[in-house]
């Protein structure tokens, strides 16, 4: 038969049977070893993340945003008390478009976006404002996610807590969010930390509710019931069985949370409940009347475009990181 041609004729080697075959003892330990390839979670996350080439582009953008928002103001020693008012008494320096500003001040990076109502550099104030807005978003997201996940997990696991928390959620969820924020901002005189406090005092409830629903969905899955029957502690089930399942959900949530705080800050400034610092929202709000003045429209649209770029980049990176952190995509 044709197949037989492929078989190797051992006699060709000219070796004795002892040389060809050695006895191998039955090793219990060896039989337990799983011969799957080595798996490192975080390595796989980054492998999957960078598989999409567009993510490299977004990572570059995010680093640029961080450099301009946090390092650039340090390099130019931007002082929010002094710098915006440098040219306040020079009427020719106000409301310049980029070309005019460059020809008036000479070319430098400060004037590539023109100047504003006080003759200040739009470019500098936008990036300083961005650093405030991004910090606000990051701090609020961190606090709300931390409290929300912690309470959401307990809420999902314990049926007694569920009854109480659901009622609390129904009540607090119905108090208008704007009302809570504005009352607190009024009392605490609109500083950065006042806004953080106002955004986080009830902000975690929505996240906790979301996590609670997710926990309930996986809590009663068969493999968890099996773990429970085998006597695994609730804490271990939470850490080993449920948390890995939740990583992608948490990452996706984080991806929507961070940009939403930046947007919300813009919205709050617009309706007059903002903070004192010149954040992105505050800049957009103060330049909003210039939108329809033909020569000044640039002053309004540049912070809006930069705010939009920041939120979109943060959102996309977060979403893709969320996808990559899901172990099911690591195949």
């Amino acid at each position, binding site marked *: 038969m044709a197949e037989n041609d492929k078989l190797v004729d051992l006699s060709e080697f000219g070796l004795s049977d002892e040389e060809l075959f050695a006895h191998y003892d039955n090793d219990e330990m060896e039989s337990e070893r799983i011969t799957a390839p080595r798996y490192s979670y975080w390595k796989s996350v980054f492998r999957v993340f960078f598989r999409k080439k567009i993510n490299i582009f977004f990572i570059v953008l995010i680093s640029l945003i961080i450099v301009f928002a946090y390092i650039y103001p340090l390099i130019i020693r931007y002082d929010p008390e002094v710098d915006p008012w440098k040219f306040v008494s020079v009427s020719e320096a106000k409301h310049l478009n980029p070309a005019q500003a460059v020809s008036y001040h000479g070319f430098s990076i400060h004037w590539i976006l023109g100047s504003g109502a006080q003759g200040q550099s739009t470019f500098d104030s936008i990036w300083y404002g961005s650093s405030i807005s991004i910090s606000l978003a990051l701090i609020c997201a961190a606090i709300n996610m931390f409290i929300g996940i912690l309470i959401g997990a307990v809420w999902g696991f314990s049926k007694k807590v569920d009854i109480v928390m659901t*009622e609390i959620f129904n009540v607090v969820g*119905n108090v208008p969010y704007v009302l809570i924020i504005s009352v607190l901002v009024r009392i605490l005189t609109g500083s950065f930390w006042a806004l953080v406090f106002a955004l986080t005092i009830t902000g975690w409830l929505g996240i906790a509710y979301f996590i609670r629903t997710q926990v309930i969905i996986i809590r009663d899955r068969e493999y968890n019931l099996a773990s429970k029957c085998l006597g695994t502690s609730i804490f271990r089930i939470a850490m080993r069985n449920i948390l890995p399942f939740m990583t992608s959900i948490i990452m996706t949530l984080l991806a929507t949370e961070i940009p939403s705080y930046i*947007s919300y800050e813009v*919205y709050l400034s617009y309706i007059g*409940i903002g903070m004192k610092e010149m954040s992105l929202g505050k800049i957009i709000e103060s330049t909003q009347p210039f939108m329809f003045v033909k020569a000044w429209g640039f002053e309004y649209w540049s912070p809006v475009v930069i705010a939009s770029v920041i939120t979109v980049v943060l959102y996309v990176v977060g979403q893709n990181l969320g996808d990559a952190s899901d172990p099911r995509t690591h195949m």
Partner: protein
Amino acid sequence: MAKYLLNRIIRGIVSVVIVVAVVMVLLFTLIDKNYIFMNDPVYSKRQQNDREAYKYQCWENYGYLEYIPYSEYLEELEREGGISREDRFAAAAFGYTAEDDTEIVARYVKQYREKYEAEGFTFVRLDALVQNKALGTLMNGGSPKIFVYRNTPVLVRLWKYFSHLITIDNIHYVEDPIEDRGLTFTLFDPLYGGKKFSPAIMGNGTYHKYLLYFDGTFPFIHQNLFTISLGESYSINTGVDVFTTMVQTQGSIVKSEITFPAGYVGQASVDLHTAAYSAGSYSTWDGEKWVVTTEKYYADRYVDNYTLVEKTKASLSKTGFSFTIGIISTFIAYVIGIPLGMAMAVNKDRFIDKLGTVYIIFIIAVPSLAYIFMFRAIGKSIGLPTTFDVDNLTAAMYVLPIASLALPSIGGFMKWVRRYMIDQMNSDYVKFARSGGLTEREVFSKHILKNAIIPITHGIPGAILGAVVGGIITESVYSVPGTGGMLVKAINFYDNGSVIGLTLFYTMLSVISLILGDIVMALVDPRISYTSKGR
């Protein structure tokens, strides 16, 4: 099902009450009560003691405290017969300071003070502020004041608020001794000359003359039997109830030829169906008989004291505008968003899906303020009107506000429909249906869509009722006179009455929407049942 619903409704009502209580605590205890005068022109005009008294008067009106001036106490005492009229006048003339009081004044002030201090009131006596000692002239607003006040506890405030929420008109409302109190039912409304068929219920002795009537404006049947008062506003619409502010018509006055009850025919803008009782406007009871007013205006037009009428205005109410815009945009969002989401799911990872994802990212990530202004700029460049003119409404004015509300919700629907459909696509019954030989078309329309659409139906009642709330930014950008900006404006002006009223209204809407949403979901999906205990 009925038992479950009843349980839900009761729990809903309880949470509404708690929400209002929380908001009351928030507003009345955390915010300094002097803030409410920030935008009050009367407050800035009044000075010294007058201002002080005005403050307490306002705080009483807005539910902070109970305030009883000395003169009010004396009047009350006279009515009860505890003091003669002459004594009352003598007792009311209190001096510049306590030392200046006459003996009778001192006695009554002491009695007044002891009575109210025993009830937990605080006694305040503001001495006169003399400008010129020799002449005895007072400073502007420097007249002496005597009053007592007591802070209202939250529970009392809550009780008062809810007990005044709905007033039912009754035939004993009018205090004057009028004859034949009662309700009459007529099939031929006298306002239409008594010939046209138009049923109405009219009252005599009630506050409103017409309790139920039909007319030519939407929703054609109207009632005045129940009056809802959510809370008096003092900045949005000074002195008018929030609910009235939301539902009353706006814009310029419309005149038409009107035949008044007394036969006078003329151009007027009044809506006679809204007639309410105003004592002494047509006739006054002098103790023995009714004396008809000599004022020609009322004598010519009316036959009774129901003369308090509202003006007919050309445009919709605040709620009307918000609801019109909201309901159309919601409808458009469902009609466009769901098919687009379906198309994205069917063509997963192909061009249409990627294009849709870019739009969804844009809507989620870009600040709403930015894209609303962008839509406005685009609309302006193609020649659409960007501001709302209440008196010259055209259909084109609605286009941009509707688009600004619909476009973001379309993104939301696309996202969720796609998500739900893709989740269903991987389920076992779909694999089974495919292996059973169904075409892709049948699998999608008969199996996946039916299951994926269920969570979407839950939001339909909420979307319809929520249309009343209006969009805050959209309405302010296009200057739509809707309800959207009311809450923010009320908060900014420290208008506590309005804030509480609006919160109550919105909370009720959301509680009702959730209950209705669950019912709709159970109707669409027969597997969902609220009766079995197994759930």
